[in-house]
């Protein structure tokens, strides 16, 4: 039994969770941490002959911890399992027995097998973005110049969790990346102190900040603060990208303006699945019904009355440009841009979704089917669409590259830089080196994770200065990116 306990503790350490205490509440863990706990548990129960399918086990891992994670995945394989991992992390791809690359693009430009094999099998330029990146033939450009800054905010005496009474200066109007290994305190500093304390000043956030002494500096420069996290864009299956960017109103109006609608007296609300009227009442506009299973994930079944279309037959008789409302909600963003190209108000509202790399998402896709990274980009798109010059918003992004391929990261960075060019400030909590290398300013916490060895400031400054200082884990990994 002692062996059993020892090996389980060993697995927890191997998946990079050595800093967690056993009495830590699961509900306070990040998605990545939770997944790694499940992984450690699977290792402990040592099932054989199974097929393990994992969604980005590298999420939340600093490159230093990734190598351990790779070891764990290999152990799982060596026990006699098939390990299938959906992943973009370079180290994990390099370590895999095989890479299966689906693409080449997204949505209608994807869906085919572009490459299968190991990285050694490729020579020269290929049709696979993935392989080209891995071979160094495609690159995320290091910005030619770092932005200079003069305004800043300073936090004094940050002591929440493992933070060691820190004084941190955060520059404004530039791209700041707060980084560090898992458990180093980077999220605590930004989400538990900076955001709530500034939020209080701006009157947008009520939760009590973590322990800190005071916050000072050019806070009056900011007009607002926005935390763009990976939480779903709405609680239910009823919120979707199109309503989040406020394009659904215009579409409903368009459908109620059709002559058949006018004859029948249909109001815009008929074309909503949130209220009674035009929606299918069997599933109340959900399009599906849920069957709760005791020992496994709930099963969702298509609604039999509307065949998953969410609307009544009569509602679907109203068409514009040859499509009914259900068919419109089934369009991808990219298809919708073409479909609505003559309806400028709708088109312009949808465009930012395309700019953040979500061209493949369906307009009516329910928010709970969007990944955390996709939800985050929908939120980003809603801000890009606003563009009012008098605002100076401080945007905070929590690991925005989660779920993103290199190619998507460069799109995301473009969108984020667009925000800064509009006069806003951006802080990113991140350990992805592609993002770190594009920062104007880096705040590196650590040196390790946990109560004892984390919570110190390892470095503050530009990427070049960090590499020069060669202190800490981040400097080591960043060096390879800046040559």
């Amino acid at each position, binding site marked *: *039994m002692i062996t059993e*306990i020892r090996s*389980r*503790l060993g697995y*927890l350490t191997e998946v990079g969770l050595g800093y967690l205490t*056993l*009495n830590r*509440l*699961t*509900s306070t863990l*990040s998605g990545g941490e*939770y997944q790694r*706990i499940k992984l*450690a*548990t*699977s290792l*402990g129960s040592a*099932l054989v002959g199974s*097929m393990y399918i*994992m*969604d980005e086990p590298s999420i939340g891992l600093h490159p230093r911890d990734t190598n351990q994670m790779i070891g764990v995945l*290999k152990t799982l*394989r060596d026990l*006699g399992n*098939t*390990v*299938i*991992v*959906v*992943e973009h992390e370079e180290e994990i*791809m390099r370590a895999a027995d*095989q*890479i*299966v*690359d*689906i693409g080449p*693009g997204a949505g*209608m430009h994807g*869906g*085919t*097998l*572009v*490459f*299968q094999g190991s990285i050694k099998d*490729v020579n020269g330029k290929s049709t696979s973005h*993935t392989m080209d990146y891995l071979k160094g033939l495609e690159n995320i450009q290091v910005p030619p110049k770092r932005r200079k800054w003069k305004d800043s905010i300073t936090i004094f005496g940050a*002591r929440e969790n493992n933070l060691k009474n820190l004084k941190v200066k955060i520059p404004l109007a530039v791209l700041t990346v707060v980084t560090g290994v898992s458990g180093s305190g980077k999220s605590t500093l930004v989400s538990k102190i900076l955001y709530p304390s500034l939020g209080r000043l701006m009157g947008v956030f009520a939760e009590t900040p973590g*322990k800190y*002494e005071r916050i000072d500096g050019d806070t009056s420069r900011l007009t607002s603060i926005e935390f763009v996290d990976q939480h779903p864009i709405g609680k239910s299956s009823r919120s979707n990208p199109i309503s989040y960017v406020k394009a659904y109103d215009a579409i409903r109006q368009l459908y109620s303006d059709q002559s058949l609608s006018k004859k029948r007296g249909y109001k815009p609300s008929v074309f909503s699945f949130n209220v009674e009227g035009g929606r299918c009442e069997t599933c109340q506009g959900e399009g599906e019904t849920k*069957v709760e299973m005791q020992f496994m*994930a709930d099963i969702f079944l298509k609604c039999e009355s509307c065949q998953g279309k969410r609307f009544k037959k009569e509602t679907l008789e109203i068409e514009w440009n040859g499509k009914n409302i259900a068919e419109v909600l089934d369009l991808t963003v990219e298809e919708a841009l073409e479909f609505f190209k003559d309806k400028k108000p709708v088109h312009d509202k949808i465009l930012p979704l395309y700019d953040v*790399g979500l*061209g*493949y998402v369906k307009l009516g896709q329910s928010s709970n089917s969007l*990944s*955390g990274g996709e939800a985050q980009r929908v939120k980003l798109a809603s801000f890009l669409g606003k563009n009012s010059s008098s605002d100076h918003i401080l945007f905070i992004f929590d690991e925005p590259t989660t779920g*993103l*391929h290199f*190619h*998507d990261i460069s799109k995301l960075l473009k969108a984020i830089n667009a925000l800064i060019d509009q006069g806003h400030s951006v802080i990113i909590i991140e350990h992805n080196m592609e993002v770190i290398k594009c920062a104007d300013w880096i705040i590196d916490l650590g040196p390790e994770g946990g109560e004892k060895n984390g919570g110190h400031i390892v470095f503050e400054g530009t990427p070049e200065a960090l590499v020069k200082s060669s202190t800490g884990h981040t400097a080591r990994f960043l060096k390879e990116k800046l040559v």
Partner: protein
Amino acid sequence: MPSSHSDLKDTYYDTLDPREYIIIKRARVNNLKNLSVAIPRNKFVVITGLSGSGKSSLAFDTLFAEGQRMYVESLSSYARQFLGRMEKPEVDYIRGVSPAIAIEQKVNTRNPRSTVGTSTELYDYLKLLFARIGKTRSPVSGKEVKRDTVTDVVEWINQLPVDSKIIIACPLTIPTGRKLKGELELLLSKGYTRVLVKGEPQLIEELAGTKKKIPKNTEIEILIDRIVTNPTDEDLNYRLADSVQTAFFEGHGDCFVYSDKKKTPFSDRFELDGMRFTEPSVNFFSFNNPYGACRTCEGFGKVLGIDTDLVIPDKTLSLYEGAVAPWRSEVMGKWAQPWLKHGAKYDFPIHRPIADLNHKELELLWNGNKDLDGIHDFFKYVESKSHKIQYRVLLSRYRGRTTCPDCRAPAFVKTRDM
């Protein structure tokens, strides 16, 4: 295997062995365009692509969905009645899929008491471990609490010198309202012939028939068996075990062994120092279970109380500089005054930052002494005045979830000593 697959003939996949490959032929799930792929089994395979490329459609909506469908197929008929409606992924075929385990990123927050320990099943093992090897100590004498099993008693008897004459007995308890005579007759009918009166054997018939008055509270025990010890005699050992078991039963948990007039008591109850204890069991160590959970916080480890960090928000300040937030106001400032005046008398450094105070000084500040009222005294006073709105507001300002004072975080009952 060839490395470029887009030009492979579909019939190629028909020739592969599903024991070596997971074979998907012509998948049309979501945006997949008749995608065929053979994934080698027992390998570590990364599926990648831009977001929206279809990689999740392949991994989750096709492979995992099929694995889940297969899993359901192996289940009860209740579960299977939904299978007809559980759609098969849109593919020509999938071969070689094993039951799938998808490790998702969604945090299951349904149980607020779920912790890292419980999710990893580590607690299950720790509970088993403590239930098996954990020792219970009496808080009175500090001695280990043990129950005697039949085997314990038999082993104790067998360590006596061979050919020792021993008596196995147990107390005779007379339920209230019943007469000794009646009990003795009951014993006779059960087949017992002798009792011990003050340790001396006597025939039950004689005792029941005697004219002599037997004083109340006379110690009477049932003589269960008389034996001459011989550890190598297997039949005798069986008889011993039988008799000890009977003694525990008739004696409601007590059994006495007489050898050489010396009486040794045994008990199969889990008790010591006149107290009964709960035996360690797996349930006992679970704080998801009312058995082992602290009664004050019901196992949550946190209670609503005075949050020390709200009371002293900035620990770089000294008491003189106003470290104690509720004492900063003009009215409540009078609570700080005695400290500033007499603090020195008790070696309390009023100019030292709170962060630099030692344990004893902090203890004094919170608990006070006969001359100085501490912060706890202050809050006791405020609570006593909480019928007034301004005091309630004051109190609410310093309330928060704090470590349970009764169990101090470990969510087990505090009287237990591992």
